[in-house]
């Protein structure tokens, strides 16, 4: 692993009017890691993702990616630098076919002459061969999650932000999805930062977990450390749960 983290978020604050959605959040992700970002609903996870990926401009703080200060960069420039993402509520291009959707991502690195090879490769990796000619608006959630992943992979990212990619998947689909993420991490050396509510996916996938609550980072550590952290249990289940656990 490189000494310098691939992603460094320093004291990022994002407000919506008087509401502080993310408050001086800091985290680091090392190259090759799979890091989980968890927290109760409304904790600010997706807002933080949006601030990292350029959709939102943070009021304070800085975001460094590959050593470069990308705070306030436009999303397409961040994508060109090597970061891509998926969305909590799937945002595949509804009127385009699966193949064309993936192709839009592939244009990030490839031109018209050599884009097809990349599209074919990603479609195969994400097991979308059978539905490559179908229009996205006709697909179910599991397929849309794969299309979003394929589109993001086609941009050839060094880091991928997955926003609740496991939500709505059944046990089999989830297991397949997790295998794919592990494979991409190990074989393609893609770094992952994963926002997730599905604990099976967080615990089974992530080497490190960062916990966000009410816009603030309250804990960070290995899955085992996090599952025994009193502040995390309190954030998820309330003070009585911590008290009951200690008795």
């Amino acid at each position, binding site marked *: 692993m490189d000494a310098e983290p691939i992603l460094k978020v320093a004291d990022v604050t994002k407000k919506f009017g008087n509401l502080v959605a993310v408050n001086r959040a800091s985290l680091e992700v090392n190259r090759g890691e799979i890091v989980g970002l968890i927290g109760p609903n409304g904790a600010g996870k997706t807002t933080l993702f949006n601030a990292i990926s350029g959709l939102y401009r943070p009021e304070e703080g800085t975001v460094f990616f590959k050593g470069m200060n990308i705070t306030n960069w436009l999303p*397409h420039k961040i994508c060109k630098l090597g970061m891509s*993402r998926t969305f909590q509520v799937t*945002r595949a291009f*509804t*009127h385009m076919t699966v193949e064309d959707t993936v192709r839009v991502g592939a*244009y*990030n690195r490839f031109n018209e002459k050599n*884009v097809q090879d990349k599209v074919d490769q990603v479609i195969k990796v994400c097991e979308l061969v059978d539905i490559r000619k179908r229009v996205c608006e006709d697909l179910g959630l599991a397929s849309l999650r794969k299309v979003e992943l394929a589109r993001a992979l086609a*941009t050839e990212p060094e880091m991928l932000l997955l926003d609740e990619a496991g939500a709505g998947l059944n046990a089999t689909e989830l297991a397949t999805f997790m295998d794919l993420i592990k494979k991409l991490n190990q074989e393609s050396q893609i770094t992952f930062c994963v926002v997730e509510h599905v604990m099976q996916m967080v615990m089974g996938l992530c080497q490190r977990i960062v916990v966000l609550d009410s816009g603030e980072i309250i804990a960070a550590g290995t899955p085992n450390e996090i599952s025994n952290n009193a502040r995390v249990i309190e954030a998820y289940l309330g003070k009585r749960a911590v008290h009951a656990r200690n008795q």
Partner: protein
Amino acid sequence: MFETATQGIITGILMGAIYALIALGLSIVFGIMNVTNFAHGDFVMLSMYLSFAVGSALAWDAVATPLITAPLMFLFGIITYYLLIDRTLRQMYVVQLAVTVGLQILMRSAALIIWQAQPRALQYSFIQGNIQIGDFQILTSRLFSAVVSLIFIAGMAYFMNKTWAGRAMRAASDDLGAASLMGVNYHKTYALTFAIGSSITALAGGLVMSFQQTDPVGGIRFGLLSWAVLALAGLGSLPGLIVAGIIVGVVESLTVSFFDPRSRLLGVYAIFILVLWLRPRGLFGRR
């Protein structure tokens, strides 16, 4: 009666193909950028004046003038986008409306100052004359313009579906945020979209100038016709745009044939209102 109706339908179909081309510019700007360009008809008016200026200066046929006016309008589109439209995208919708209506007034006033109020027409076109089929006459200039319009629309469909820029434009139309995060530069994509929309009016302007004159308020008619075609077709279907253009053309032509020529837009407006009332998505619209 039958002859009059048939002649009206033939003329309407030919004009309808040209209306579809004019509406195509409006359709891609509205459909991809969600920008309501109320000045679209005046872009056609400006294109017709440019066609007149180029045709007069170089003694060119009107239908050849888009070779010069299309790049000029493309440039005009890019400048207009960066100077005006881009600044309205993150504003309230009413700002966009005010800016495009202001642009409309500015263009009309500029045309009035530069070319004065009297109508302007080019003297000669190599496609003048008629084709006689039985009892029916087809103006060669309209037939030529309709064929060129349909070929261009087909070419545009290919561009949108098979090229990098076209796919980027469609992706931005579907979800701008997601497209940006996949590497699509939305500033460039929007500028290109607006520029293409503008240069389409140059082609349409050159074709229309082969059989029609222009004046500073000529854009009102083309603007309203474009909105009627777009409302009828809905967004996202180029074949739908052609069918809608033909319906509008035929209704306009039959109104002229059977009623007072001054009421030519009455039937078109009736369709416009009915469609917005009964089917706001249009006949072929996806959204």
